[in-house]
């Protein structure tokens, strides 16, 4: 299988990632190779009865229901790229897609 240039662009839009025109051929070539490589998983018979394995605790542990703020050493004004009067500042949304 191979990933076309248009597919890379479609996926990049989904991922909100700008890709340069000149890197497109290399990117589609590498994505194709990676996806071809992982496609060997399909050689294994799909087994609907396999229970999905996720490590970690079997159940979510509940905490006591009380407000206990973990204070930050400093506020967002110090790490945000643009912050004004308690808000993160961004350019306007051009249009809804």
């Amino acid at each position, binding site marked *: 299988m191979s990933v076309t240039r248009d597919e890379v662009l479609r996926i990049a839009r989904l991922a909100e990632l700008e890709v340069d025109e000149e890197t497109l051929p290399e990117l589609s070539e590498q994505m194709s190779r990676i996806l071809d490589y992982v496609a060997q998983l399909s050689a*294994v018979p799909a087994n609907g009865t396999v229970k999905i394995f996720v490590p970690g605790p079997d159940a979510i542990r509940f905490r006591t229901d009380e407000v206990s703020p973990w204070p930050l050493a*400093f506020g967002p004004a110090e790490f945000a790229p643009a912050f004004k009067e308690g808000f993160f500042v961004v350019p306007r949304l051009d249009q809804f*897609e």
Partner: protein
Amino acid sequence: MSDAKAIADRLTKVRRLNALLTPSKDLRKSLTAQAAAARPTGVLYGMPVAVKDNICTLEFTTSCGSRILEGYRSPYEATAVAKLKAAGALIAGKTNCDEFAMGSSTEHSAYGRVIHPLDKARVPGGSSGGSAALVGSGAIPAALGSETGGSVRQPASFCGVVGIKPTYGRVSRYGLVAFGSSLDQIGVFGRSVHDAARVLSVISGRDPRDSTCEDRDPLRLPTVPESLQGFVIGLPREYFPPELDPGVRRACERAVRFLKEQGAAIREVSLPHTAYAVPTYYVLAPAEASSNLARYDGVRYGPRFNGAADLRSLYRSTRGQGFGPEVRRRILVGTYVLSAGYYDAYYRRAQQMRALIAQDFRNVFDRGVDLLFTPTTPTPAFKAGEKLGDPIAMYLSDIFTVTANLAGLPAMTLPIGRVKGLPIGGQLIGQAFLEDEMIEAAYALERVVPATDEA
């Protein structure tokens, strides 16, 4: 107690490795302040521990080896770091790593590649290559790293040091920058089994701030055993393929003889789904990464790459310019395998395979095997640039380490000899939450194996 200036001097002497991202001046100043404040009763009092740059610290910036977090100061610190400080340890700066821990050579850092401490033409492994190189150079006794697919054990093996990845849920991940959340764990590097184990024991244990961290007491440090009498150690045949590097094979065979001499019973076993571990990993990890890395959008933190007229192009230009090529590739692959029409073929299949890989281990452990012994990596440290053009070749250097991450099991590497001067690591894989047994076996092997001799 080593004094702050001496620690800073030792780290400054190995600047050529490009292993430390913290400027010498900042490091010296912070170490002096930390030493004055450190609790003299702590079990790690005065011990310098360097921390991988994807673990949040208040003392230093946390860039994850990425331009997209260049200069970022976290307003909180990781639980593991807080525990180290409470035990009297000194945080000895932030170590260089592959961007967002994605890589196996530490060549994918936005701040330049890390140099192998014994051979400047080679890589230290990755992604925690900076931590491994610093411990390997002898500048510090221990460091923190993180693992998603082998990012502590693989570089530890390349640099001739001890590296431990604990059981998933053993150490809190609060303050570890997320990559693949069903796989990520903080791990430790040490110049000896004891140094690594005591740091692990300090950072382990319950944390209400991380719901994936198990409600357990910190790891109890085992004592050095008299012998390995009663231990059954399995050798999975899939980890000793015909194409295994002959030097690695020789070193492993010698280590197995030492394990036997120490009284362990050796049994050949099989983990039949091993060959599918790397493809499984390279579906699941990028899928989780594509979701976790959605938060870097130039709005709330990190630099903003401008020229953006509207919000959407702000996202796209910041992410496009802020992420390096390997991270971009993985975000795209991850988005692809989760997208409509491909989810079942890739993501669901990989999840099923992960369950089969975990079952392989349970089958072996259920039949009376206590631990597994394998090579940590298929080859010694490779040359810089050798695998950069071939992502699959790079991914395959994690072939013996990803399985423990997929199954959530504890695993560690220790140096078992050298081949043409390059360190070889032997891996022990243990049962969930039985790190103490694994560490006991490592103590016994470390005591007898001539780790710096040619195998």
